[in-house]
């Protein structure tokens, strides 16, 4: 098992002929991901990295029956690429692109929700199920198969945590990088629930950041519904107090709070919080 991604999922790379698309599609193929096609408008009919390139997502999906796509496309074109992917009928959409206008992200997110598409990102590293498949840019060599589920708002910090786990003998079921943007696809809670229901996952690591209220909502869910042990690390513990999105934001969601406040709320929900990323494997060992 694992969550969201296994070795059978066929993936289309949108923007496969670009610099980033080429580099990371190659790495995904090398890891074992079933990359079945690429899409670059105007380059249909060519072959790139040993896979066929199509002009449109519709053609690519029809030809390959792929159910997932990943976007390596500049921010200004991401909106239409994501819409195209959803219209073509894929059901797992991963947006790596950084700097997507938040209104575009909101539109993609709503369209994904309306069509039962799982959207990961934008501005995210994607996901990896070790020894099975990866969609995104998480370096495969730092991962190992195991029973720790990771869900994170960060990218590179997640790699740090994965490596610490692997070195200490704790492999991973699936690692999901949600992305650091204020408006994004799936969040902590969707992943916590998936990990809770995944037999392979025995413990869950949540990596949060200052800003937003996703961690607080995760604390609520963990208190009510998650029975597996959860560990949390929050980046930004020493950051100067974050600025509020005006007063309107505070009225709707309450203050998003400092890293310390988030850690307190998470602790109260029974989650083990740690101060440095290297502390996570130590805590897991203690609890075994």
């Amino acid at each position: 098992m694992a969550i969201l991604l296994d070795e059978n999922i066929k993936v289309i790379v949108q923007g496969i002929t670009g610099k980033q698309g080429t580099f990371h599609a190659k790495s995904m193929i090398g890891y074992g991901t079933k990359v079945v096609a690429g899409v670059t408008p105007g380059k249909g009919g060519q072959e790139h990295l040993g896979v066929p390139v199509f002009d449109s997502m519709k053609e690519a999906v029809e030809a390959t029956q792929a159910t997932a796509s990943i976007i390596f496309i500049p921010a200004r074109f991401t909106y239409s690429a994501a819409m195209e992917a959803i219209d073509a009928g894929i059901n797992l959409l991963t947006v790596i692109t950084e700097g997507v206008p938040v209104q575009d992200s909101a539109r993609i997110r709503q369209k994904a929700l309306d069509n039962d598409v799982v959207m990961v990102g934008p501005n995210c590293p994607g996901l990896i199920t070790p020894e099975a498949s990866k969609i995104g840019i998480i370096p495969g060599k730092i991962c190992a198969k195991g029973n720790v589920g990771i869900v994170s708002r960060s990218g590179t910090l997640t790699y740090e945590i994965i490596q610490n786990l692997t070195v200490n003998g704790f492999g991973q079921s699936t690692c999901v990088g949600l992305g650091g943007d204020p408006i994004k696809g799936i969040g902590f809670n969707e992943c916590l629930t998936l990990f809770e229901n995944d037999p392979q996952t025995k413990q869950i690591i949540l990596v949060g950041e200052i800003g937003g209220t996703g961690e607080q909502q995760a604390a609520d869910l963990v208190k009510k519904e998650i029975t597996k042990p959860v560990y949390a690390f929050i980046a930004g513990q020493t950051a100067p107090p974050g600025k509020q999105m005006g007063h309107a934001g505070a009225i709707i969601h309450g203050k998003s709070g400092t890293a310390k406040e988030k850690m307190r709320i998470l602790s109260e929900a029974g989650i083990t919080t740690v101060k440095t990323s290297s502390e996570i494997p130590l805590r897991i060992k203690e609890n075994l």
Partner: protein
Amino acid sequence: MPVFNSMPMLYEIEGKQLFKENKIPVPRFRAYTDSSSISQFVEEIGSDVMMAKAQALSGGRGKAGLIKKVSSAEAEEYIQSILGRDHRGKPVEIVMLEEPLEIEKEYYLAVMLDNESGKYLIIASSRGGVDIEEVAEHYPEDIFKESLSIWDDPFSYLFIDLGKNLGFEAKTLTSFTNLMTNMVNMAKQRDLTLVEINPLILTPDKKIIAADSKVVIDGNSDFRQANIASLKSQRDRHTELEFEADQAGISYVQLDGDIGIIAGGAGLSMATCDLLEFFGSSPANFLDVGGGADEIKIEKSLEILSRQNIKGIFVNFFAGITRCDDVAQGIINASKKFEIEVPIVIRLVGTNDKKGISILEENGIKAYGEMEPAARKIIELVKGGN
């Protein structure tokens, strides 16, 4: 996404200019960077009294004496007295003169793109002109909220109930619903994540006018909102170094510690700051080069740090979309162009790390593979140098 970078807010006067362009009624106003030609404005508004408001990106202008009702005789002297005055670390460079309004009642109104729901939220209250968070606490029944799907057009009819809840009737109700339509359309067309009017004023002749503006833009939309991105506020919200970094696509926030940081990724950059503090030192900045940074960005980051007063540099990369060889080459290029006068410790792993490490080694620089030993090393070097 810069995580604790300053919020991309506009000056009140820039917000009001946007309001005007989008048919949201505002008082007549004019910007002054010196105190000349005030008489012309006095003539235009046909009033001998007016509001003088210093333009600042931090709150607390009223308490700081930067907003004042003045007569035309006093205006010149007042403007001269507040131009250049420091407000929370920034000098006042613009003063706005504005026609005075007769007030029958004050309201609160906000449109925001909500991060949690991905919808536009409209928040309104008949208790405006005061701290709205206090209203929410003491009179929650006087706060009205509506949400609008990101895909829906903000037709006027959608806001009739809201207008009635606020107590508007007859022609004023229509003015209000039209204002709402214009406000949401403006937010959508100009990629604004928050538009707040506090207070919205009802005049004795039943007109509604935005007496203040608070507008937050979406920095990711700069490429399609060039007019907004080039506004003075967007230059002024940064320090000089922060602005330069921003122009180069680097998220950089100046802090006041000893060790300069260059990291890939906002989370890792924050965690690097955290780790230095945890080990008893302090970060001089937050710096995230962003995903897929090339050697030019790395070189630029080092150049920015070289102009900050620091005692050491910690380069920390766990590269995914960025490539370690680009990072290494950027460091080498920088060191050939200018002297890096402080100790530097580099931690480099991830995509293409072998290539990166060998580039550094060819130039006699050792790279660390793990973050904590590298952090301890730079702290030791900095302390040793004292």
